[in-house]
């Protein structure tokens, strides 16, 4: 905050005060308040780039201000601001008294005389200059210095309050929040564009910037600031606190109004808006260096680089001074950035100049006869109607994302039910209760499918991927899956009037499509070569291929039927006309056996026995196989499926599937189609290289994708692939028992809703009591009633000078007033702290939640290291005998708890 419109209280005798027209005083007062408020809102403050700046000398700075309060230097000699020294003679000149600026210092020393004092007064110089004038000069000086002290105190309050919000020496809150978001977020594309720019930091060493910083130090050193509080120095730092390019207009967008209120040279606000060419030159040189500094990796669109100084580089600058810079590439690819100055602790405001800089005289206005001039500066013109977005604040990398710089009428407002409008009397942060889209996936969790978390996209490769083109048609058989063509397309055709519900047939054919999806074009697993005859040396292999390929497809098909309750509500064995015990298990075995026999690949092994006929019968005629029971079993399955299917399952193909709206199909069919389109394009496919920004979210996306791919594409054993996620993956799944080796499920406690913090008025009163006692110089635990201001304090510090002691006794009321004022100031700070504690506790809960998430994640990751993998090899054969499975189930019975056997 710049406190630049503190109007001087020039009121020595009659002259200066007469120029203040009382009729407009009230309006001006309102104007002043408004202007100050505008100044507070604009917050032209420190950029938090130099967050690690040395925090040295805050107390010394405050001490220097306090010595000024008592008109002293650190060494104890009298000190008066240069502006006041020049202003007082100008005020006296209107009363016909001539003194020099140095005479204001002499007025505070009783042993010195006002050597240059002259007057045209009728009382004569001997009376005016000797004795009469000195106390009045002292009074005028003290009054002006008190106003300036008030400015400094207000600046301290404002800077202290703003420091943790803006970042800087005492808090990196904006940086921390940004860092946490950046580390945790998922997504590198559209998400960033929606939520803001990406920011990184580059540290500059002493060797990097020595030339530039030394130039700045030389200019801002003794040459520009002969004293610690020289207005030119303070003004220059504030002037370039938003950046040198902002001041020169290079960086200002055309839509922005000029950010600086009118201030002609010689006005009281001259130093506030005075441009300093030498400082600008040094800063522009520094900016040129920053602008051309090579960056690795190069800046991407929408990325910002903050340049920070290391400790050695910072040491090149004067105490409490900072130099900052940032560079960015805008979202449309334009290079931008700026460099500027700032304070570590912004304790000194830009105070009124009072008199023209470097020119004799202090009158502001039209000096012609009959016109009004004002000593010490005119009231400022009405403030420009600057919106926050037109200020330098909104050009800063962090601050421009704040609510002051946020456009209320943004595009997103159309999604919200509320209409957001700025309110001059309140801070409107806004709410949005509009509906956001929800996404339900079918093929499992589909991790991060709606987030662009990977860099780049994977092009379609017909050799490793496929596109399934499923349609309904008129066939002489139920369904057909063709080999993958050169374009990677696999055509699947379902007979419109197939026997049984078309849904189950689609599931069957899509398993075949999946078997061929990742193979090279022309491949058709298992069924593209028939057995040439009894002596075909590949007969066994071809039989095995058919049994496995068809087994997978029929298994998925019969599992779906079982899930739908075709075989009874609990999947139990149901009776049939063939006398075969039908359930999901016997279903897929019968259908597989039938299918392979029909295609002359021979029979497939079964895990159950036909009650009549020879189980080893190899009859070519499927109608007579097992005494005709195979054909009967097939018909039974079709009949049962037709009869027992849920009412929601249609019979015909066209009623089941609409090519233009595949997502409207049976969820299992839709999931399979979606899954097929992802095959070969997954993160964890062989030879797949995936790059992404290293964030927790993106790492979780990669991890989840691989786990999901494991669940969806696993091949635990031939013929045992699940059709959809969560399907059983092994024949013996039901006989498995949970063992300790299978791990535990991690639970995270549900958080309670955030509530308002407890309001403890008694605690606040106690804190104020303590502050009250300590302000009055008593121990913190003393009873408050004993902490009142004691008139004897003055006596308590007796002076050996009796006259001075008497004066102190007379002025002890002033001492009490001073303490009252201190308590008022302290109460403000105390209230700020108490208020902060209230919302701090709310924010703290959010932090606590994040802490719990990190703790849980840590526990989870720790358990990863404790997973025990099986040392039992999976059986490579799809069909195992009853005896094998029985033995397997026996092996993993409860007694064998040390291993989960099959993974």
């Amino acid at each position: 905050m710049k406190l630049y419109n503190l109007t001087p209280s020039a009121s020595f005798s009659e002259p200066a005060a007469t120029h203040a027209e009382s009729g407009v005083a009230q309006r001006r007062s309102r104007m002043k308040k408004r202007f100050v408020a505008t100044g507070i809102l604009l917050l032209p403050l420190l950029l938090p780039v130099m967050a690690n700046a040395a925090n040295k000398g805050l107390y010394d700075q405050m001490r220097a201000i306090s010595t000024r309060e008592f008109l002293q230097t650190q060494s104890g000699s009298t000190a008066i601001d240069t502006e006041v020294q020049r202003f007082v003679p100008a005020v006296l000149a209107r009363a016909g008294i001539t003194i020099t600026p140095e005479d204001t210092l002499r007025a505070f020393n009783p042993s010195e005389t006002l050597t240059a004092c002259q007057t045209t007064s009728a009382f004569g110089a001997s009376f005016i200059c000797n004795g009469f004038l000195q106390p009045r000069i002292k009074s005028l000086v003290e009054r002006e210095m008190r106003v300036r002290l008030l400015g400094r105190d207000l600046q301290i309050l404002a800077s202290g309050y703003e420091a943790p919000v803006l970042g800087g020496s005492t808090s990196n809150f904006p940086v921390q929040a940004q860092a946490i978001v950046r580390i945790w977020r998922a997504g590198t594309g559209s998400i960033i564009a929606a939520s803001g720019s990406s920011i990184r930091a580059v540290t500059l060493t002493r060797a990097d910037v020595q030339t530039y910083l030394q130039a700045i130090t030389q200019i801002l050193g003794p040459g520009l600031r002969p004293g610690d509080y020289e207005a030119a120095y303070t003004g220059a730092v504030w002037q370039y606190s938003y950046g040198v390019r902002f001041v020169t207009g290079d960086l200002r967008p055309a839509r922005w109004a000029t950010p600086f209120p009118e201030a002609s040279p010689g006005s009281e606000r001259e130093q506030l808006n005075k441009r300093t060419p030498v400082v600008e030159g040094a800063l522009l040189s520094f900016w040129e260096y920053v602008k051309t500094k090579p960056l690795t990796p190069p800046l991407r669109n929408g990325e910002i680089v903050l340049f920070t100084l290391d400790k050695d580089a910072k040491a090149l600058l004067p105490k409490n001074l900072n130099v900052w810079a940032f560079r960015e590439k805008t979202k449309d690819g334009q290079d931008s950035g700026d460099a500027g100055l700032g304070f570590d602790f912004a304790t000194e405001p830009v105070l009124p100049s009072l008199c023209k800089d470097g020119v004799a005289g202090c009158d502001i206005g039209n000096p012609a006869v009959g016109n009004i001039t004002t000593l010490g500066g005119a009231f400022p013109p009405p403030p420009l109607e600057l919106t926050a977005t037109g200020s330098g604040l909104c050009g800063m990398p962090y601050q421009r994302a704040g609510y002051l710089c946020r456009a209320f009428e943004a595009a997103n407002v159309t999604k919200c039910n509320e209409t957001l409008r700025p309110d001059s009397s309140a801070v409107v942060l806004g709410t949005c209760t509009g509906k956001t889209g929800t996404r339900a996936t079918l093929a499992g969790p589909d991790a991060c499918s709606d987030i662009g978390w990977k860099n780049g996209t994977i092009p379609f490769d017909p050799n490793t991927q496929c596109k399934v083109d499923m349609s309904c048609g008129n066939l002489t058989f139920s369904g057909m899956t063709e080999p993958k063509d050169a374009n990677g397309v696999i055509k699947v055709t379902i007979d419109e009037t197939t026997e049984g519900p078309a849904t189950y047939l689609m599931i069957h054919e899509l398993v075949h499509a999946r078997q061929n999806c990742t193979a090279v074009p022309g491949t058709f697993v298992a069924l593209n070569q028939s057995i040439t005859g009894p002596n075909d040396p590949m007969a066994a292999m071809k039989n095995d291929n058919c049994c496995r390929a068809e087994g997978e497809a029929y298994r998925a098909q019969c599992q779906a039927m079982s899930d739908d309750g075709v075989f009874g509500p609990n999947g139990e064995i149901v009776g049939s006309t063939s006398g075969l015990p039908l359930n999901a298990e016997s279903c897929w075995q019968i259908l597989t056996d039938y299918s392979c026999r029909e295609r002359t690949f021979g029979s497939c092994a079964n895990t159950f026995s036909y009650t009549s006929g020879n189980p080893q019968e190899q009859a070519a005629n499927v109608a007579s196989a097992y005494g005709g029971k195979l054909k009967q079993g097939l018909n039974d399955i079709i009949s049962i499926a037709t009869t027992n299917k849920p009412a929601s399952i249609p019979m015909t193909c066209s009623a089941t599937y609409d090519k233009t709206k595949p997502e409207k199909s049976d969820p299992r069919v839709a999931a399979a189609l979606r899954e097929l389109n992802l095959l070969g394009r997954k993160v964890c496919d062989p030879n797949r290289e995936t790059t992404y920004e290293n964030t927790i979210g993106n790492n979780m996306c990669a991890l989840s994708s691989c786990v999901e791919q494991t669940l969806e594409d696993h091949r635990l054993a031939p013929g045992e692939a699940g059709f959809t996620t969560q399907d059983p993956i092994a024949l013996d799944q039901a006989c498995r028992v949970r063992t300790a080796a299978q791990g535990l499920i991690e639970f995270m406690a549900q958080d309670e809703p955030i509530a308002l913090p407890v309001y403890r008025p008694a605690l606040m009163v106690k804190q104020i009591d303590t502050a009250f006692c300590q302000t009055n110089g008593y121990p913190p635990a003393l009873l408050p009633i004993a902490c009142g201001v004691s008139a004897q304090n003055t006596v308590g510090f007796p002076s050996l000078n009796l006259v001075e002691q008497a004066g102190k006794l007379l002025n002890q009321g002033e001492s009490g007033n001073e303490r009252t004022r201190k308590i008022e100031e302290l109460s403000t700070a105390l209230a700020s702290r108490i208020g902060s504690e209230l919302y701090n506790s709310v924010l703290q809960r959010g932090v606590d939640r994040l802490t719990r998430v990190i703790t849980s994640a840590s526990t989870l990751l720790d358990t990863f290291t404790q997973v025990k993998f099986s040392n039992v090899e999976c059986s490579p054969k799809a069909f195992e005998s009853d005896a094998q499975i029985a033995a397997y189930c026996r092996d993993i019975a409860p007694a064998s708890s040390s291993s989960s056997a099959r993974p």
Partner: protein
Amino acid sequence: MSKSKTKAPAPKRVLLYALLIFIAFVLALFTGAELTGQVNKNNLRGAVLAACSGSNLLFPNTGAASLERWIGDYRRETSLVVDDILATAENPTCTLEREDDVPQSLITLARKLAPWQKKNPTLSEAPSVLLEHLRVYECSLSEWNRFSFGSQVAGSSSSSVGTRIDTSFHRQAREQKLIQNELSIARPSLHRTLSYVGSALRLHPLSQNMDCLVRASADLRNVLGLAAETSMCLPRTWDVRQTLQNPAP
């Protein structure tokens, strides 16, 4: 009649006053140092409701140059604690087993003050510690102002009483100016510092946690990066039909 008996003649009254001043002077001459020492020896007496007295721990009386040293010590110590508090806020220690990250300089200072003799201060007590430090400083200056004159006269090596008194008066005048200066400036300086620090650190607990969360998040990110890298092998680990190694591209 009674008036004339109770009111001494003017010359006698002057003599009486002179006698009283002389007695007070002699008492101060011979008891000043002892009084000061007595207070300092018991500087921690009455721990909570301590009287306004100096502290031998913080501002020991080491002779004539004590005052200048006290002033320098107070400024350095206060500045150090303020700087350390700000530095702690900027760079917290995340691995502490306690909640508060209190700078050592604050603990050291507080331990020398009566209310914190038996316990360490919390960071939120820093303003109280600094104000109590200031109070003891002011009391030490006040005490020096009261008793140093007698001590100096008594401790002077000069044989002439007149010279001793004259030298002590000059020193007293110079020291009094320093004391008045300090009593005027020290308190408003600390108030301004606390106003700034109190506001600037109001989000300190949150900021400290955030800082530690940033570091923990970075650790978590790196571990998850390793887990993600490892997970790339999962599908092939589960697929018995293909090799674990990448086929040739």
